[in-house]
Protein backbone atom coordinates (compact mmCIF):
# COMPACT_ATOMS: atom_id res chain seq x y z
CA UNK A 1 0.00 0.00 0.00
CA UNK A 2 1.44 3.38 -0.94
CA UNK A 3 1.54 6.47 1.24
CA UNK A 4 -1.40 8.88 0.85
CA UNK A 5 -0.58 12.11 -0.95
CA UNK A 6 -3.14 14.20 0.84
CA UNK A 7 -4.80 13.34 4.09
CA UNK A 8 -7.71 15.15 5.67
CA UNK A 9 -8.40 14.55 9.35
CA UNK A 10 -11.60 15.78 10.98
CA UNK A 11 -12.10 18.49 8.43
CA UNK A 12 -14.81 20.95 9.37
CA UNK A 13 -16.14 23.86 7.41
CA UNK A 14 -18.62 26.56 8.26
CA UNK A 15 -19.71 29.30 5.89
CA UNK A 16 -22.02 32.16 6.84
CA UNK A 17 -22.98 30.41 10.09
CA UNK A 18 -23.98 27.24 8.22
CA UNK A 19 -21.98 24.10 8.74
CA UNK A 20 -21.20 22.44 5.42
CA UNK A 21 -19.46 19.38 6.82
CA UNK A 22 -17.70 18.22 9.96
CA UNK A 23 -15.53 15.29 11.03
CA UNK A 24 -14.66 14.67 7.42
CA UNK A 25 -11.64 12.36 7.21
CA UNK A 26 -10.24 10.79 4.07
CA UNK A 27 -7.00 10.07 2.24
CA UNK A 28 -6.16 10.69 -1.38
CA UNK A 29 -3.91 7.87 -2.55
CA UNK A 30 -1.78 7.83 -5.70
CA UNK A 31 -3.35 6.09 -8.70
CA UNK A 32 -6.96 6.81 -7.67
CA UNK A 33 -9.85 8.80 -9.07
CA UNK A 34 -12.19 10.31 -6.48
CA UNK A 35 -15.47 11.94 -7.29
CA UNK A 36 -16.91 14.42 -4.80
CA UNK A 37 -20.69 14.22 -4.85
CA UNK A 38 -23.51 16.16 -3.29
CA UNK A 39 -26.49 18.38 -4.02
CA UNK A 40 -26.21 22.05 -4.99
CA UNK A 41 -24.85 23.96 -2.04
CA UNK A 42 -23.50 20.89 -0.24
CA UNK A 43 -19.97 22.26 -0.36
CA UNK A 44 -18.25 20.42 -3.20
CA UNK A 45 -16.56 23.51 -4.57
CA UNK A 46 -15.69 24.69 -1.09
CA UNK A 47 -14.09 21.35 -0.30
CA UNK A 48 -11.98 21.45 -3.44
CA UNK A 49 -10.93 25.04 -2.73
CA UNK A 50 -9.96 24.00 0.79
CA UNK A 51 -7.91 21.10 -0.54
CA UNK A 52 -6.24 23.36 -3.10
CA UNK A 53 -5.30 25.88 -0.43
CA UNK A 54 -7.51 28.71 -1.66
CA UNK A 55 -9.98 28.78 1.20
CA UNK A 56 -9.15 29.36 4.85
CA UNK A 57 -12.64 28.66 6.15
CA UNK A 58 -11.84 25.28 7.66
CA UNK A 59 -10.70 23.61 10.83
CA UNK A 60 -9.05 20.27 11.36
CA UNK A 61 -5.87 18.88 9.85
CA UNK A 62 -4.58 18.62 6.31
CA UNK A 63 -1.42 16.58 5.74
CA UNK A 64 0.61 16.61 2.54
CA UNK A 65 2.78 13.47 2.33
CA UNK A 66 2.45 13.14 6.10
CA UNK A 67 3.45 16.72 6.93
CA UNK A 68 1.10 19.54 7.95
CA UNK A 69 0.32 21.35 4.73
CA UNK A 70 0.98 24.85 6.05
CA UNK A 71 4.57 23.86 6.76
CA UNK A 72 5.31 22.75 3.21
CA UNK A 73 3.22 25.30 1.31
CA UNK A 74 5.39 25.84 -1.73
CA UNK A 75 6.22 22.21 -2.28
CA UNK A 76 2.53 21.39 -1.86
CA UNK A 77 1.55 23.98 -4.45
CA UNK A 78 4.12 22.62 -6.90
CA UNK A 79 2.52 19.20 -6.63
CA UNK A 80 -1.11 20.14 -6.99
CA UNK A 81 -2.97 21.29 -10.06
CA UNK A 82 -6.29 22.99 -9.47
CA UNK A 83 -8.80 23.92 -12.15
CA UNK A 84 -11.79 25.86 -10.87
CA UNK A 85 -15.14 27.13 -12.10
CA UNK A 86 -13.41 30.12 -13.60
CA UNK A 87 -11.03 28.77 -16.21
CA UNK A 88 -8.16 31.17 -15.49
CA UNK A 89 -7.94 32.31 -19.09
CA UNK A 90 -7.25 35.93 -20.07
CA UNK A 91 -9.69 36.91 -22.83
CA UNK A 92 -7.17 39.28 -24.38
CA UNK A 93 -4.41 36.70 -24.77
CA UNK A 94 -4.29 33.84 -27.24
CA UNK A 95 -4.57 30.20 -26.12
CA UNK A 96 -0.84 29.75 -26.57
CA UNK A 97 0.03 32.85 -24.52
CA UNK A 98 -2.43 31.84 -21.83
CA UNK A 99 -1.03 28.37 -21.57
CA UNK A 100 2.52 29.64 -21.45
CA UNK A 101 1.67 32.13 -18.70
CA UNK A 102 -0.06 29.43 -16.64
CA UNK A 103 2.96 27.13 -16.90
CA UNK A 104 5.58 29.83 -16.37
CA UNK A 105 5.67 29.71 -12.57
CA UNK A 106 5.60 25.90 -12.41
CA UNK A 107 7.35 24.27 -15.33
CA UNK A 108 8.09 26.40 -18.38
CA UNK A 109 8.20 24.50 -21.64
CA UNK A 110 8.76 25.16 -25.30
CA UNK A 111 6.09 26.21 -27.76
CA UNK A 112 6.15 22.87 -29.51
CA UNK A 113 4.76 20.90 -26.59
CA UNK A 114 2.20 23.61 -25.85
CA UNK A 115 1.03 23.76 -29.48
CA UNK A 116 0.69 20.01 -29.46
CA UNK A 117 -1.34 20.11 -26.28
CA UNK A 118 -3.67 22.73 -27.74
CA UNK A 119 -4.05 20.74 -30.94
CA UNK A 120 -5.02 17.67 -28.97
CA UNK A 121 -7.76 19.56 -27.15
CA UNK A 122 -9.22 20.42 -30.54
CA UNK A 123 -7.89 23.96 -30.76
CA UNK A 124 -5.60 23.50 -33.77
CA UNK A 125 -5.72 26.65 -35.84
CA UNK A 126 -6.91 28.76 -32.91
CA UNK A 127 -3.55 29.01 -31.13
CA UNK A 128 -3.02 32.68 -31.97
CA UNK A 129 -6.63 33.93 -31.77
CA UNK A 130 -7.47 36.05 -28.70
CA UNK A 131 -9.50 33.89 -26.35
CA UNK A 132 -12.41 36.33 -26.20
CA UNK A 133 -13.25 35.26 -29.77
CA UNK A 134 -13.54 31.62 -28.64
CA UNK A 135 -16.67 29.94 -27.29
CA UNK A 136 -17.08 29.04 -23.63
CA UNK A 137 -16.32 25.39 -24.40
CA UNK A 138 -13.20 26.33 -26.34
CA UNK A 139 -11.98 28.53 -23.50
CA UNK A 140 -12.52 25.64 -21.14
CA UNK A 141 -10.45 23.48 -23.48
CA UNK A 142 -7.56 25.95 -23.25
CA UNK A 143 -7.56 25.45 -19.50
CA UNK A 144 -7.81 21.68 -19.93
CA UNK A 145 -4.82 21.67 -22.28
CA UNK A 146 -2.75 22.05 -19.13
CA UNK A 147 -3.70 18.52 -18.14
CA UNK A 148 -1.94 17.18 -21.23
CA UNK A 149 1.42 18.53 -20.13
CA UNK A 150 0.94 18.57 -16.35
CA UNK A 151 3.27 16.55 -14.15
CA UNK A 152 1.60 17.34 -10.81
CA UNK A 153 0.77 14.13 -8.90
CA UNK A 154 -2.55 15.49 -7.60
CA UNK A 155 -5.21 17.08 -9.78
CA UNK A 156 -8.20 18.88 -8.27
CA UNK A 157 -10.80 19.49 -10.97
CA UNK A 158 -13.94 21.46 -10.17
CA UNK A 159 -16.71 21.09 -12.75
CA UNK A 160 -14.28 20.62 -15.62
CA UNK A 161 -16.90 19.11 -17.89
CA UNK A 162 -18.98 22.29 -17.98
CA UNK A 163 -19.55 23.52 -21.55
CA UNK A 164 -17.66 20.56 -23.02
CA UNK A 165 -19.40 18.59 -25.80
CA UNK A 166 -20.18 14.87 -25.53
CA UNK A 167 -17.15 13.60 -27.42
CA UNK A 168 -14.93 15.91 -25.37
CA UNK A 169 -16.35 14.49 -22.14
CA UNK A 170 -15.48 10.96 -23.24
CA UNK A 171 -11.95 12.03 -24.15
CA UNK A 172 -11.46 13.66 -20.76
CA UNK A 173 -12.80 10.55 -19.00
CA UNK A 174 -10.13 8.55 -20.81
CA UNK A 175 -7.48 11.11 -19.90
CA UNK A 176 -8.33 10.90 -16.18
CA UNK A 177 -8.38 7.11 -16.28
CA UNK A 178 -4.97 7.00 -17.97
CA UNK A 179 -3.64 9.47 -15.45
CA UNK A 180 -4.71 7.22 -12.60
CA UNK A 181 -3.13 4.24 -14.34
CA UNK A 182 0.14 6.20 -14.49
CA UNK A 183 -0.05 6.68 -10.73
CA UNK A 184 -1.56 10.16 -10.49
CA UNK A 185 -4.39 11.06 -8.18
CA UNK A 186 -7.49 12.89 -9.42
CA UNK A 187 -10.25 14.46 -7.36
CA UNK A 188 -13.12 15.95 -9.33
CA UNK A 189 -16.68 17.19 -9.13
CA UNK A 190 -19.24 17.09 -11.88
CA UNK A 191 -22.94 16.97 -12.49
CA UNK A 192 -22.36 15.07 -15.73
CA UNK A 193 -22.91 11.36 -15.93
CA UNK A 194 -19.27 10.41 -16.06
CA UNK A 195 -18.09 6.79 -16.15
CA UNK A 196 -14.59 6.14 -14.94
CA UNK A 197 -13.86 2.61 -13.78
CA UNK A 198 -12.77 2.29 -10.17
CA UNK A 199 -13.93 5.77 -9.14
CA UNK A 200 -14.14 6.31 -5.40
CA UNK A 201 -17.02 8.40 -4.16
CA UNK A 202 -16.95 11.09 -1.51
CA UNK A 203 -20.53 12.08 -0.75
CA UNK A 204 -21.33 15.34 1.02
CA UNK A 205 -24.75 15.46 2.63
CA UNK A 206 -25.71 18.11 5.18
CA UNK A 207 -24.65 17.04 8.63
CA UNK A 208 -23.24 13.65 7.62
CA UNK A 209 -20.50 12.54 5.31
CA UNK A 210 -20.01 9.24 3.61
CA UNK A 211 -16.83 7.97 2.05
CA UNK A 212 -16.64 4.62 0.37
CA UNK A 213 -14.05 2.84 -1.75
Amino acid sequence: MSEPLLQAINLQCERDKRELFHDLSFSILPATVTRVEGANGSGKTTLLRILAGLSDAWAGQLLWCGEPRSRVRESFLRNVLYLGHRPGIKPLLSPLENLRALMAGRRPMGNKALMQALARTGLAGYEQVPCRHLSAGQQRRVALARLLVADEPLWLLDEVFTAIDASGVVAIENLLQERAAEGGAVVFTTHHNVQIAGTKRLVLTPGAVGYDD
Partner: protein
Amino acid sequence: MMIKPLDQAVGSIEAMKAVFARDMKVAFRQRQDLLNPLLFFMMVVTLFPLGVSPEISFLQEAGAGILWVAALLSVLLSLDHLFRHDFDDGTLEQLVLQPQPLFLLVLAKTMAHWVLTGLPLVLLTPVLGVMVHLDGNSIAILCLTLLIGTPVLSLIGAIGAALTLGLRSAGVLLSLLIIPLYIPVLIFGTGTVAAAAEGAPVGAYLALLGAFLVLALTLAPFASAAALKVSLSNS
Protein backbone atom coordinates in the same frame (compact mmCIF):
# COMPACT_ATOMS: atom_id res chain seq x y z
CA MET B 1 4.42 3.25 -12.55
CA MET B 2 4.59 5.57 -9.59
CA ILE B 3 4.62 9.35 -9.54
CA LYS B 4 6.96 10.93 -7.02
CA PRO B 5 6.37 14.33 -5.43
CA LEU B 6 8.12 17.02 -7.44
CA ASP B 7 10.73 19.56 -6.54
CA GLN B 8 10.67 23.22 -7.43
CA ALA B 9 11.40 23.77 -11.12
CA VAL B 10 11.29 27.54 -11.49
CA GLY B 11 13.16 30.31 -9.67
CA SER B 12 11.13 33.14 -8.13
CA ILE B 13 12.74 35.76 -10.37
CA GLU B 14 11.67 33.83 -13.47
CA ALA B 15 8.15 33.58 -12.14
CA MET B 16 8.09 37.32 -11.37
CA LYS B 17 9.29 38.11 -14.88
CA ALA B 18 6.54 35.96 -16.35
CA VAL B 19 3.84 37.71 -14.27
CA PHE B 20 5.22 41.12 -15.23
CA ALA B 21 5.42 40.20 -18.90
CA ARG B 22 1.89 38.83 -18.96
CA ASP B 23 0.45 41.98 -17.39
CA MET B 24 2.29 44.18 -19.86
CA LYS B 25 1.08 42.10 -22.76
CA VAL B 26 -2.54 42.20 -21.59
CA ALA B 27 -2.32 45.97 -21.09
CA PHE B 28 -0.91 46.57 -24.56
CA ARG B 29 -3.67 44.47 -26.12
CA GLN B 30 -6.06 47.13 -24.84
CA ARG B 31 -4.04 50.26 -25.37
CA GLN B 32 -6.90 52.73 -25.08
CA ASP B 33 -7.29 51.79 -21.40
CA LEU B 34 -3.74 52.98 -20.78
CA LEU B 35 -4.73 56.49 -21.83
CA ASN B 36 -7.58 56.79 -19.33
CA PRO B 37 -5.52 57.70 -16.24
CA LEU B 38 -3.52 60.18 -18.32
CA LEU B 39 -6.65 61.87 -19.63
CA PHE B 40 -8.06 61.96 -16.12
CA PHE B 41 -4.80 63.50 -14.88
CA MET B 42 -4.99 66.28 -17.48
CA MET B 43 -8.66 66.95 -16.86
CA VAL B 44 -8.25 67.31 -13.10
CA VAL B 45 -5.38 69.73 -13.62
CA THR B 46 -7.51 71.71 -16.07
CA LEU B 47 -10.26 72.09 -13.48
CA PHE B 48 -8.10 74.26 -11.23
CA PRO B 49 -7.45 77.23 -13.53
CA LEU B 50 -11.10 77.06 -14.54
CA GLY B 51 -12.49 76.57 -11.07
CA VAL B 52 -10.17 78.74 -9.00
CA SER B 53 -8.15 81.20 -11.01
CA PRO B 54 -5.99 81.28 -14.15
CA GLU B 55 -3.73 83.92 -12.60
CA ILE B 56 -0.08 83.11 -13.08
CA SER B 57 0.86 83.84 -9.48
CA PHE B 58 -1.79 81.46 -8.12
CA LEU B 59 -0.89 78.70 -10.54
CA GLN B 60 2.81 79.07 -9.79
CA GLU B 61 2.18 78.74 -6.10
CA ALA B 62 -0.38 75.93 -6.26
CA GLY B 63 0.87 74.15 -9.39
CA ALA B 64 3.00 71.49 -7.76
CA GLY B 65 0.22 70.64 -5.30
CA ILE B 66 -2.38 70.49 -8.06
CA LEU B 67 -0.25 68.15 -10.14
CA TRP B 68 0.48 65.92 -7.14
CA VAL B 69 -3.17 65.68 -6.12
CA ALA B 70 -4.20 64.98 -9.72
CA ALA B 71 -1.54 62.27 -10.08
CA LEU B 72 -2.63 60.73 -6.78
CA LEU B 73 -6.25 60.64 -7.90
CA SER B 74 -5.40 59.07 -11.26
CA VAL B 75 -3.41 56.33 -9.58
CA LEU B 76 -6.31 55.78 -7.19
CA LEU B 77 -8.71 55.52 -10.12
CA SER B 78 -6.60 52.89 -11.87
CA LEU B 79 -6.10 50.74 -8.77
CA ASP B 80 -9.53 49.19 -8.94
CA HIS B 81 -8.44 47.23 -12.03
CA LEU B 82 -5.18 46.00 -10.53
CA PHE B 83 -6.60 42.65 -9.41
CA ARG B 84 -10.22 42.85 -10.57
CA HIS B 85 -9.91 41.41 -14.08
CA ASP B 86 -7.64 38.63 -12.84
CA PHE B 87 -10.14 37.90 -10.10
CA ASP B 88 -13.07 37.74 -12.52
CA ASP B 89 -11.45 35.44 -15.07
CA GLY B 90 -9.81 33.14 -12.52
CA THR B 91 -6.18 33.93 -13.28
CA LEU B 92 -5.78 35.33 -9.79
CA GLU B 93 -6.56 31.92 -8.29
CA GLN B 94 -3.87 30.41 -10.47
CA LEU B 95 -1.47 33.17 -9.43
CA VAL B 96 -2.02 32.46 -5.74
CA LEU B 97 -1.55 28.73 -6.38
CA GLN B 98 1.80 29.18 -8.08
CA PRO B 99 4.52 27.45 -6.07
CA GLN B 100 6.23 30.77 -5.35
CA PRO B 101 6.23 33.25 -2.48
CA LEU B 102 3.06 35.19 -3.21
CA PHE B 103 4.46 38.55 -2.13
CA LEU B 104 7.03 38.42 -4.93
CA LEU B 105 4.35 37.78 -7.54
CA VAL B 106 2.26 40.61 -6.09
CA LEU B 107 5.33 42.83 -6.24
CA ALA B 108 5.74 41.97 -9.92
CA LYS B 109 2.11 42.84 -10.58
CA THR B 110 2.46 46.12 -8.69
CA MET B 111 5.57 47.02 -10.65
CA ALA B 112 3.69 46.40 -13.88
CA HIS B 113 0.92 48.64 -12.60
CA TRP B 114 3.40 51.43 -11.92
CA VAL B 115 5.05 51.13 -15.33
CA LEU B 116 1.62 51.33 -16.94
CA THR B 117 0.17 54.21 -14.89
CA GLY B 118 2.67 55.98 -12.62
CA LEU B 119 5.48 56.26 -15.13
CA PRO B 120 3.33 57.77 -17.93
CA LEU B 121 2.07 60.33 -15.41
CA VAL B 122 5.63 61.33 -14.61
CA LEU B 123 6.41 61.65 -18.31
CA LEU B 124 3.37 63.86 -18.86
CA THR B 125 4.19 66.12 -15.91
CA PRO B 126 6.61 68.50 -17.72
CA VAL B 127 3.89 69.43 -20.21
CA LEU B 128 1.34 70.14 -17.51
CA GLY B 129 4.01 71.86 -15.41
CA VAL B 130 4.54 74.38 -18.21
CA MET B 131 0.79 74.90 -18.45
CA VAL B 132 0.61 75.89 -14.76
CA HIS B 133 3.62 78.19 -15.19
CA LEU B 134 6.10 76.29 -13.04
CA ASP B 135 9.71 77.23 -13.72
CA GLY B 136 12.19 74.71 -15.10
CA ASN B 137 13.82 73.88 -11.80
CA SER B 138 10.50 73.27 -10.06
CA ILE B 139 9.35 71.02 -12.90
CA ALA B 140 12.52 68.97 -12.65
CA ILE B 141 12.14 68.55 -8.88
CA LEU B 142 8.43 67.80 -9.28
CA CYS B 143 9.17 65.06 -11.80
CA LEU B 144 11.78 63.62 -9.48
CA THR B 145 9.38 63.55 -6.50
CA LEU B 146 6.71 61.94 -8.66
CA LEU B 147 9.19 59.40 -9.94
CA ILE B 148 9.99 58.35 -6.39
CA GLY B 149 6.46 58.90 -5.05
CA THR B 150 4.21 57.17 -7.59
CA PRO B 151 5.66 53.68 -6.96
CA VAL B 152 4.78 54.21 -3.28
CA LEU B 153 1.25 55.09 -4.36
CA SER B 154 1.02 51.87 -6.39
CA LEU B 155 2.46 49.73 -3.58
CA ILE B 156 0.18 51.09 -0.84
CA GLY B 157 -2.76 51.15 -3.22
CA ALA B 158 -2.29 47.46 -3.99
CA ILE B 159 -3.08 46.70 -0.35
CA GLY B 160 -6.39 48.52 -0.63
CA ALA B 161 -7.16 46.90 -3.97
CA ALA B 162 -6.51 43.46 -2.49
CA LEU B 163 -8.62 44.18 0.60
CA THR B 164 -11.64 45.41 -1.34
CA LEU B 165 -11.50 42.74 -4.03
CA GLY B 166 -14.90 41.28 -4.80
CA LEU B 167 -16.83 43.67 -2.56
CA ARG B 168 -19.76 45.80 -3.57
CA SER B 169 -18.81 49.44 -4.20
CA ALA B 170 -15.17 48.44 -3.99
CA GLY B 171 -14.03 51.59 -5.79
CA VAL B 172 -15.30 54.06 -3.20
CA LEU B 173 -14.23 51.85 -0.32
CA LEU B 174 -10.75 51.56 -1.80
CA SER B 175 -10.43 55.36 -1.82
CA LEU B 176 -11.63 55.62 1.77
CA LEU B 177 -9.05 53.11 2.96
CA ILE B 178 -6.13 54.38 0.96
CA ILE B 179 -6.30 58.18 0.86
CA PRO B 180 -5.28 58.64 4.54
CA LEU B 181 -2.25 56.45 3.89
CA TYR B 182 -1.25 58.59 0.91
CA ILE B 183 -0.99 61.77 2.96
CA PRO B 184 2.71 61.50 3.96
CA VAL B 185 3.79 60.93 0.36
CA LEU B 186 1.71 63.89 -0.76
CA ILE B 187 3.12 66.14 1.96
CA PHE B 188 6.72 65.34 1.20
CA GLY B 189 6.18 65.31 -2.55
CA THR B 190 4.78 68.84 -2.64
CA GLY B 191 6.90 70.03 0.29
CA THR B 192 10.07 69.19 -1.58
CA VAL B 193 9.01 71.31 -4.55
CA ALA B 194 8.06 74.16 -2.21
CA ALA B 195 11.42 73.96 -0.47
CA ALA B 196 13.21 73.98 -3.82
CA ALA B 197 11.25 77.08 -4.86
CA GLU B 198 12.57 78.87 -1.78
CA GLY B 199 16.09 77.86 -2.70
CA ALA B 200 16.51 75.39 0.16
CA PRO B 201 18.53 72.20 -0.46
CA VAL B 202 16.21 69.30 -1.24
CA GLY B 203 18.57 66.34 -0.96
CA ALA B 204 17.35 65.39 2.49
CA TYR B 205 13.70 65.50 1.45
CA LEU B 206 14.32 63.38 -1.60
CA ALA B 207 16.20 60.90 0.59
CA LEU B 208 13.19 60.79 2.89
CA LEU B 209 10.87 60.08 -0.04
CA GLY B 210 13.33 57.37 -1.04
CA ALA B 211 13.06 55.95 2.47
CA PHE B 212 9.25 55.83 2.07
CA LEU B 213 9.77 53.92 -1.16
CA VAL B 214 12.11 51.41 0.46
CA LEU B 215 9.71 50.94 3.36
CA ALA B 216 6.77 50.44 1.01
CA LEU B 217 8.76 48.03 -1.16
CA THR B 218 9.68 45.87 1.80
CA LEU B 219 6.37 45.87 3.69
CA ALA B 220 3.49 46.53 1.31
CA PRO B 221 3.79 43.35 -0.81
CA PHE B 222 3.43 41.21 2.32
CA ALA B 223 0.27 43.06 3.31
CA SER B 224 -1.13 42.85 -0.23
CA ALA B 225 -0.39 39.14 -0.45
CA ALA B 226 -2.08 38.46 2.90
CA ALA B 227 -5.06 40.56 1.86
CA LEU B 228 -5.34 38.74 -1.47
CA LYS B 229 -5.49 35.40 0.29
CA VAL B 230 -8.26 36.65 2.58
CA SER B 231 -10.26 38.05 -0.34
CA LEU B 232 -9.90 34.88 -2.40
CA SER B 233 -10.83 32.72 0.57
CA ASN B 234 -14.00 34.75 0.94
CA SER B 235 -15.07 34.41 -2.71
